[in-house]
């Protein structure tokens, strides 16, 4: 079963007095499998939050559809299996931390006897136990984000949707958040996480999708997305004739401590270089493959979108 299924989802806003059409999302299709941590990336204005709002039925699509656990996104009952943390956590200010969690627990249909224990557990996990009796208005931004995270995890949902979850957290909070995500993954939960912090996504996500200007530009595992950047062939005793032959290729050659490093930017160059080495009877000492980081993948995806 897929946790999230989005098919040809589009959203066009009408802006200003002249009701100018602004396409926020164009024909987005993707699937998130159960049990995976899925990173949803893109620059500001790419359409990430719009996608989440459509998925949660807070916005109505212009066309296309979204399903959660094979139920339409608007189905109220499927939300029993869903936890959501919005980008800006706006919580009712007339509640204390604890009473707010009690209210949400009741809305989620949690049985009364289990509520208090679960609330205590989460307040402790997110280091809010001392502030639990305080009114939400007295909470700092980071504390609000933690409380928002607590309400998203409260009913132990199968799918957790997180929109920029660490934007207000300090480095310690981010590390704790990452640990919680890994624990959720261990428990077999599905996490859909939209974030700007690429290192954060890189360390926990099974698959990522990159969105740019409302369109999906890449989707896959990090391995699938990261094409080898270059291959370095390290050889000993390079003669003048070989150096001349290599100079005619696109390979970069550097000499240091009696070794020559031949950097091949692509597979074709590598094949040519290997052929030349065989012809000159030079053996390869070792091979080093440089792979792309998520940041490289992200920027190349965005750049490819910018090209006409």
């Amino acid at each position: 079963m897929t946790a999230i299924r989005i098919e040809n989802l589009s959203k066009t806003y009408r802006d200003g007095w002249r009701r100018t059409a602004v396409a926020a999302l164009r024909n987005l299709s993707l699937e998130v499998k159960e049990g995976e941590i899925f990173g949803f990336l893109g620059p500001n204005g790419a359409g990430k939050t719009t996608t989440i709002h459509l998925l949660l039925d807070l916005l109505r699509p212009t066309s296309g559809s979204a399903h959660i656990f094979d139920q339409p996104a608007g189905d109220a009952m499927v939300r029993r299996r869903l936890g959501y943390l919005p980008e800006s956590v706006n919580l009712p200010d007339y509640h204390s931390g604890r009473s707010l969690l009690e209210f949400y627990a009741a809305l989620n249909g949690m049985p009364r006897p289990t509520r208090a224990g679960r609330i205590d557990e989460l307040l402790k996990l997110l280091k809010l136990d001392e502030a639990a009796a305080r009114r939400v208005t007295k909470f700092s931004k980071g504390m609000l984000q933690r409380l928002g995270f607590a309400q998203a995890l409260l009913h132990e949902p199968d799918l957790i949707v997180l929109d920029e979850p660490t934007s207000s957290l300090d480095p310690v909070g981010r590390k704790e958040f990452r640990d919680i995500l890994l624990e959720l993954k261990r428990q077999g939960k599905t996490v859909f996480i939209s974030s700007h912090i690429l290192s954060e996504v890189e360390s926990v996500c099974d698959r990522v999708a990159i969105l740019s200007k409302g369109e999906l530009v890449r989707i896959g595992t990090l391995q699938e997305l990261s094409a080898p950047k270059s291959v370095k062939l390290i050889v000993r005793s390079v003669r003048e004739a070989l150096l001349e032959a290599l100079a005619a290729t696109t390979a970069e050659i550097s000499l240091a401590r009696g070794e020559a490093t031949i950097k091949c930017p692509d597979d074709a160059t590598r094949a040519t270089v290997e052929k030349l080495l065989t012809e000159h009877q030079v053996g390869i000492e070792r091979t080093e493959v440089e792979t792309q980081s998520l940041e490289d993948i992200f920027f190349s995806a965005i750049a490819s979108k910018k090209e006409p």
Partner: protein
Amino acid sequence: MKTTLLIAVDSIRALLHQRLLLGLMLIALAMIAIFSVVLIGQRKFVTQVVIDESVANAPASENSEGKADADAHAGAAKTKSPASERHLSKEDQQKLAEQMDQMASMFQAAFYQMASFGGSLVSLFIFSTAVATEIRKGTIRITLTKPVSRNQYLLGKYLGGIAVMAGYALIASAAIMLFARFARLELSPAMKFAPWLMFCRQLMLGSLAMLLSLYIHPFLASVLAFFAGNGLYSKYNPLFYILPSYSGFNVFRQMLQGSLVSGKDVLLLSLYALDFIIVMMLLAWWRFRTKELV
């Protein structure tokens, strides 16, 4: 139903934390106190005037014993008015009673009018902000990602508003009765149905304000709902038949005249209010089910 009630209870909780609402209620309590003090002072003044007139009109031929009696009346009136009333002639007592009745009707009518106006403001405030403010603040986003349908949410918010308005109507009618008892006034016959009619009118205003707040800013929605009554139009204007009629619910005139509001009128007005509220709620539901909440 449980979810709807949870939303309603939370809505009441939210409203009770509203400073503006608490302020309005405190003003209402302060007005009760001021009115009571003013009325008691007025009552003493009227009694004194009647006694003074009674003394002045006493026949000059009365013997010194009679004059001494009148002086005693005046002296007693200065210290303890109710005791002096007993010493008045039957004619003066009747005159005093008439004046008191008139004053009671006037004060109760004024009190009712004030409570009704205050309640209308409270109602407009509650219903116009109930959903619209949650959308504006963004607090609705988390609530509606719980297993809560939009219908349940809207109905819960409406029920919360009804509960607070019922509380207001109860407090206002208890205050009028306490006030009348404290000032030893007879309750106006119209008071029997006045709180109920006031409650109906406020719910009508509220349901219209809630519907409008799903399209326009809550403040504008409140202003429009308040002035949307058909009282401003003649019977020949089509708007007279389209816009809601609030005038029948205001029993100010009956209270002033001390007359009774008939049970049949109350029933018809209640049905009219129910009808109006259901239509407004259906229109609000129609709008809210497709409204974008971001």
